[in-house]
């Protein structure tokens, strides 16, 4: 019987080693260690043995059984590992294949510029004010110190709808309307919007374009406050190293009036093609609100004062992104629009 056991063991071990996959090994397990297997049969057959031999034989069977089990488990672990490896090998992919695209659009570059400016001033306590694009002559001109027949009206040839109604030539009427509505209270607003002028569309002119203006009215608002505010704007918008300079200018609705240059963000002031070799780039017009404008809207110009500034998002986008033709903003060529997708530094 002992010899039989030894033979069984040899046989089992041989079959374990010969198994090449988990299934075959499981078959071996069932065949030798299962309830109907020869080892179990041997144990059952121990009844025929003399009583004193039974424990010895039982122990021997158990030893063989354990030995076979151990070898089988070891083999099993190995084969399972192999199986997993084979599976993983099969599942491997070409990681250089393209991913499933997530297609998203993006802001129009002008909106990108406008929102950047809006957010920057919102951070300084400004609100956003909007108004109609078709305006009364009164709000577009008269309330802004541009009475009928004023020579400065030449500066902006307008699209009239009737004698008293026109497409606004700037966003300043929003300021006039806000002042009227606020009835003498302090104001701190940014007014973005579309404006219209009688220009033939070409690389630098567009009959429709965008403006963004700011207005602050309060007690003792000073020109130094305007300069400080513009400097904060310039640094946030164009970089911390930007210097600003003010030059005297003229707008009918401000006195004094200024134009603001920033030190060139491309060359840092050394002179390049962006700044036309001057080191400076003209960015916006501004000034202290003209007392006539304040008075027309019911503000006491001796007690309250204010400043206003205005700029063109087209110009800023053209400078910032190097766009050479203003018409690109209105053609809506996807090859153009889609370039304003990514985040900036």
């Amino acid at each position, binding site marked *: 019987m002992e010899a039989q056991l030894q033979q069984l063991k040899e046989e089992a071990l041989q079959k374990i080693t010969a198994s090449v996959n988990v299934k075959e090994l499981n078959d071996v397990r069932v065949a030798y260690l299962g309830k109907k297997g020869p080892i179990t049969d041997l144990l059952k057959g121990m009844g025929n043995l003399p009583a004193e031999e039974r424990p010895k034989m039982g122990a021997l069977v158990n030893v063989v059984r354990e030995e076979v089990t151990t070898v089988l488990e070891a083999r099993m672990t190995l084969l399972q590992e192999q199986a997993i490896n084979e599976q993983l090998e099969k599942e491997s992919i070409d990681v250089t294949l393209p991913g499933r695209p997530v297609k*998203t659009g993006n802001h129009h570059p002008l909106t990108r510029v406008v929102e950047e400016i809006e957010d920057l001033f919102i951070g300084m306590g*400004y609100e956003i004010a909007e108004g109609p694009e078709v305006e009364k002559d009164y709000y577009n001109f008269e309330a802004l110190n541009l009475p009928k027949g004023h020579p400065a009206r030449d500066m902006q040839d307008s699209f009239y709808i009737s004698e008293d109604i026109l497409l606004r030539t700037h966003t300043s009427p929003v300021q006039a309307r806000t002042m009227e509505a606020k009835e003498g209270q302090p104001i*701190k607003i940014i007014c973005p919007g579309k404006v219209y002028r009688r220009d033939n569309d070409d690389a630098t002119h567009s009959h429709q374009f965008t403006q963004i203006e700011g207005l602050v009215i309060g007690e003792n608002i000073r*020109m130094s406050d305007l300069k*400080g505010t513009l400097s904060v704007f310039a640094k946030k918008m164009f970089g911390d190293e930007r210097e600003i300079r003010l030059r005297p200018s003229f707008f009918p609705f401000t006195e004094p009036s200024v134009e603001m240059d920033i030190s060139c963000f491309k060359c840092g002031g050394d002179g390049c093609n962006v700044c036309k070799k001057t080191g400076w780039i003209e960015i916006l017009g501004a000034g202290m609100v003209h007392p006539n404008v304040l008075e027309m809207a019911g503000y006491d110009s001796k007690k309250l004062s204010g400043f206003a500034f205005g700029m063109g998002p087209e110009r800023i986008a053209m400078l910032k992104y190097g766009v050479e033709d203003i018409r690109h903003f209105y053609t809506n*060529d996807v090859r153009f629009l889609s370039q304003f997708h990514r985040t900036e530094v």
Partner: protein
Amino acid sequence: MLVSTKWLAEYVNTQGLDPKDLGEKITRAGIEVDAVIDRSHGMTNVVVGYVKEKVKHPEADKLNICQVDVGDETTQIICGAPNVEAGQKVIVARPGAVLPGGMKIKKAKLRGEESNGMICSLQELGIEGRLVSKAYADGIYVLPETAVPGESVLPLLGLDDVVLELGLTPNRSDALSMLGVAYEVGAILSEDMKYPEATYTESNEKASDYLSLKIDAIEENPMYIAKVVKNIQVKESPLWLQHRLMAAGVRPHNNVVDITNYVLMEYGQPLHAFDYDRLETKEIVVRLANEGEKIVTLDDQERTLKSNHLVITNGNGPVAIAGVMGGANSEVHDGTTTVVIESAYFAGGSVRQTSKDHNLRSDASARFEKGVDPNRVILAAERAASLLAELAGGEVLAGSVIVDELDKTPAEVVVSPDFINNRLGMKISLEDMTSILTRLKFDYQAANGLLYIKAPTRRQDIKIEEDIIEEIARMYGYDEIPMTLPVEESKPGGLTSYQAKRRQVRAFLEGAGLYQAITYSLTSKEMSQKFALETAPVTELLMPMSEDRSILRQSLIPHLLEAVTYNTARQADTVALYEVGSVFLGETESGLPHEQEHLAAVISGKWLDHSWQGEKKAVDFFVLKGIVEGLMELLGLSKEITFERTVVDGLHPGRTASIQLAGEEIGLIAQLHPSEQKDRDLKETYVMELNLAQVLNKEVEALYYAPVSKFPSISRDIALVVDSEKATGELQAIIQLSGGRLLKNVHLFDLYEGEKMEQGKKSVAFSLTYFDPERTLTDEEVVNAHNKVLKALAEQAGAELRG
């Protein structure tokens, strides 16, 4: 305004500043110098030549062989100009010269003959053709006999000069004259002025014996002075005067006209010269024109006048349109011997209207429009008389003929230094302020802590305290203004709820794959109401620049479609655009159209192309509808949105839906009509437009969290067979209504119509989810609820349960 720095230096010491530096100082002080133009263009080797001999070129009809004395030698030059003659002093560019056009002069052979240089026209020296006097417009320029061969021509022609081009704002009309610019430069550099001289010997005869003057329109013409100069000889002006005019951008004609233009440039006061004999009547009457009255002006145009146009007449008919242009009938000509010089103050508004009506803008009208200095009217007349005496041999008659009711009181401004400093946020001392006023040549008195200022009449822009603030600040230097921020109650800024939601709408649409477009508001009549959600009377321009941009739009779709067409024509295989913008509806009580903010979107072409994994999809109705539904979900409105079949011109009749918010139409979504697609060469294209204002202004419930339940939900599927026409939306509504409070979700998961179905029928399958947040549902409860749904579907939609 073009300012010759050499000419300028006659009135003010420019301290030998490099013109570029001078220009920079002027710019920083307030008048922008747009360009600094070197009139020499760096030319060398351009000298006076004397043509000793001229013979025809044997080989070429149009060429002449000239022997030219160029100072150090006599050399041969071939010249093709028709007006070259022996005995002339001419401009010679010698070998080595580089002309402004870039032409390099070299020794050359022309048809076998040697040529050692070039005889030049003024144009070849960089002078614009329109500035060259007519006599030399088509040939070489002939220098005066006094020119010395071999000497450089640059000083002779005033080309050794630098011109500053000023970009003047409308308030600074005082700088429309050399004297005005000199005042400005004097103030900047703290230098005094030198004024032009006007001295001449008066004749024994009196002007008033030659001429009478009457003004019948004193409001339009409060001041008029005429001087009479006789025995003049009309001829070419001296070279210095001609080249100064050319530097200022004025073409020389003859000495009389040139003198009036010279004084115009010098004083900013327009003058006009009449031929006295041609006036015929010894009389000048200024009046408003008779309606329909005619005059032939100097440019040989017959012009019909209106009753608000001011004219100068000889008592009978017009001889000039006041301040705008003279008449041909009284023009100075070569044979003129006696001239009347007019210097007047014409009201700006009147000249502006007249020049606009006749589309005639001139150096004169531009200055009258902006208002000339009342105190220079007489000075300019006297200066012209003296120049006529000096340069035309004229005899100036004694006195003048004058009417003067012009108010010449200077504007007075009282301002406190504290007010100036408060507004600027600075601490400029009183001393510094008064020193600036002195430099500006403003009369002032400092008393009682105030400055009493009389602004000179040349500075008509100075009227109020703020004007003085600007003068002080710009002269003190804007660089000196400190940087501060407004001191105030700090209040948070921000967007309104509408503005914030609009930004989220943009972000959503872009996340969904659409690019933001911005198109024009102005469109054509044809497009203005196409696809409009709502039409109203159109808003039309009075004077459009073109038919295509003449009316304000009432729908955003047409221009978006233009953009799609543009992109598709350029091989874009997907075009997905949206726009947020106003449409303009009718007229409100205020007279303005109602501006309604809309959102529109257009998609065309491929929607998804991930073909290597078998995913590929063209745009269709449901792609766009899904975007609209997602948007409504974002805005908390999805429960109130419904879609209903409708028909709209230009859109696919079977694929158009009106979008309704709580039963009110707020938008449309559709496929573009196939014939419209064909016209534009587009594949299937889908459009939608929403009244965004209405959507964003719709009130929504506050966002409030519903507890996440730990109890399971139970799903039941239903497959139905219904008539093909039955809208699935209707079925879904029936399910929702009949499902009771336990029914939480209805999801359409299958739709089949085709061969395996009976004709006219379709199969629809829904998955229903039942759920109670409080407990686990029993089978019985679900069966009960579900049976109610099935019953309702059968009764209300004739649906048969399938499978």
